[in-house]
């Protein structure tokens, strides 16, 4: 360490500034309407498996989900920021996993109710994460 280097306290303060700045930008509030829209889209992602045996409906719903979220992100000024809430992140990945399970269920079974059930699970899982995200950013 040279005489021009910051002291450990100054370095610690600089690291705290970094953490604070990154949290602030990652926790930019979302418009309230985006939460229910995303919850419905995750449910539709699962239900799309009932519409046709190909993946075109699922692809269309996934595309709409991405376009809606990136557009809102650009309007908010932070299109690629990943929120810090772990509950939210688990909620998003969990909802995506339920949608995949719904698609698998649609291929393995002729019954519609498992697909509806797993799609509902996707919506509920995202909603739990959404509540955590809203509380962390509001």
């Amino acid at each position, binding site marked *: 360490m040279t005489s021009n280097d*910051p002291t450990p306290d100054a370095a610690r303060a600089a690291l705290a500034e970094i953490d604070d700045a990154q949290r602030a930008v990652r926790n930019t509030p979302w418009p309230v309407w985006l939460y229910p829209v995303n919850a419905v889209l995750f449910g539709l992602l699962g239900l799309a498996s009932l519409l046709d045996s190909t993946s075109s409906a699922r692809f269309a719903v996934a595309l709409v989900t991405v376009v809606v979220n990136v557009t809102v992100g650009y309007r908010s000024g*932070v299109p*690629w920021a990943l929120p810090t809430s772990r509950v939210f992140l688990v909620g998003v990945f969990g909802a995506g996993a339920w949608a995949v399970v719904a698609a698998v269920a649609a291929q393995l079974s002729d019954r519609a109710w498992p697909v509806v059930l797993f799609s509902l699970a996707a919506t509920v899982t995202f909603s739990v994460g959404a509540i955590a995200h809203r509380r962390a950013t509001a």
Partner: protein
Amino acid sequence: MSGLDPVIHPTHRLRICAMLAAATTVELSVVKEHLDITPSALSKQVASLVDAGYVRQERSRTDTRRVWLSLTRAGATAYREHVAALREIVALEPVATAGLDGEPAS
């Protein structure tokens, strides 16, 4: 400490780089909102980072009032090394403290 970068080190520039590292692309108005400094002061800080080749500044094609900032590859590297150097300074502190307690620090 070799990784410390004098361009990045001032608090406002460090916070700008931290935001860009966390969110990849950030609109200038968002940076301004979180820095709580005047527009002219922010312009100077951003200009220093742009001049150093650390930050890319682009106007939106659809709305020219909106300005987007992102780290260049050189900026991302310099920021990463700067943060690593700060962490190293903090990590070295217990050794220095132990030296003050009686054991000479080597």
